[in-house]
């Protein structure tokens, strides 16, 4: 039986692992991917020690740091459930099940989907959730960006350099992203901002050819070849049904990263900790492992 299983390998999970390795715990890391949202981030200018670093570069640094210790890592593995019976925590995954004395849930967040007809069908056929990754494939094309927050505005800034025309479709009456980015976007004659506008349907044949939207009860179809969905994030907490969660489905933790089940801790963006930042997630990961360490020493 393991002392600890860390679920997730983003900033929180990797930092938790580094601390666990240094405490010489018998532990395992299970994760779908490495880096989490950080791997998908563009430019990072607020991680102390790096005035400027890209998301993939910072992820590589995190990984390098973790792999300096001999960490047992199960990649490409989905966690399906976590529960506790008679002092043993059971973790069920897509490939098996594991027993451990403690666990840290650091499974992060993922992109929210629109939930409209055509969205799933045309995923990777014009519908994308990562402007940074797939943007270049839409060179010279007309595209729609859905959302009004900073991630939508960042996507617009990136696509202004690449696409032919951009429709920024926002369900709210006004954009909520930073004013400084809004100004840059409003200066570009490539962008049409459609506020109070709801997405009804993604249209296409083999690839996306349009998007049906509704503004003030009037429906219209915009001819676009790309749709970038940037409407925020949801926590990867579906598997943690036995843990207390808030209205946003974030796992509730106390100041020591404890959940409602003794021995199960949580850290980073999947929790209800205020503010979601790479540096905060990393700090929370270290706090969680130190919490686990104290917990284990009291069990002996």
């Amino acid at each position: 039986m393991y002392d600890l299983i860390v679920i997730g390998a983003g900033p929180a999970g990797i930092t938790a692992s580094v601390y666990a390795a240094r405490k010489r715990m018998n532990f395992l890391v299970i994760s779908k991917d490495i880096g989490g949202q950080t791997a998908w981030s563009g430019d990072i200018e607020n991680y102390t020690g790096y005035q400027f670093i890209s998301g993939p570069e910072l992820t590589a640094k995190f990984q390098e740091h973790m792999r300096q210790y001999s960490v047992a890592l199960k990649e490409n593995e989905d966690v399906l459930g976590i529960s506790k019976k008679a002092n043993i925590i059971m973790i069920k995954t897509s490939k098996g099940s594991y027993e451990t004395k403690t666990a840290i849930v650091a499974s992060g967040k993922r992109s929210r989907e629109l939930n409209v007809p055509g969205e799933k069908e045309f995923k990777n056929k014009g519908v994308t959730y990562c402007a940074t990754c797939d943007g270049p494939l839409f060179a010279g094309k007309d595209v729609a960006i859905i959302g009004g927050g900073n991630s939508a505005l960042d996507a617009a800034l990136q696509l202004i350099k690449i696409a032919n025309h951009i429709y920024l479709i926002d369900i709210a009456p006004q954009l909520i992203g930073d004013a400084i980015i809004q100004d840059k976007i409003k200066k570009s004659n490539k962008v049409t901002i459609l506020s109070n506008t709801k997405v009804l349907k993604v249209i296409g044949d083999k690839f996306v050819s349009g998007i049906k939207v509704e503004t003030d009860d009037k429906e219209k179809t915009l001819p676009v070849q790309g749709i970038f969905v940037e409407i925020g994030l949801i926590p990867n907490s579906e598997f943690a049904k036995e843990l207390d969660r808030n209205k946003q489905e974030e796992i509730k933790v106390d100041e020591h990263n404890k959940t409602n089940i003794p021995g199960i801790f949580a850290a980073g963006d999947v929790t209800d900790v205020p503010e979601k930042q790479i540096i905060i997630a990393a700090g929370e990961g270290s706090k969680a492992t130190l919490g686990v360490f104290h917990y284990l020493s009291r069990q002996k």
Partner: protein
Amino acid sequence: MKNVKVYSTPTCPYCQHAKQFLKDNNIEFENIDVAADPAKGQEMVKETGQMGVPVIEIDGEFIIGFDQEKTKTALGL
């Protein structure tokens, strides 16, 4: 030796993973940056019927996304 190509963009994390995996296994490959060469990007879209990167081409067979298991099998690793 198998003919291996990776269609990628400089900014996509799974492209980095895929290339690192090939390097770690000493597999030579041609990197096709579809951001720098949009025509090649369109070729990839036509061949695979989808617009996501990375795409790994091994002796004319296309693997969409970075699927480590499929890539290993195709390379005979």
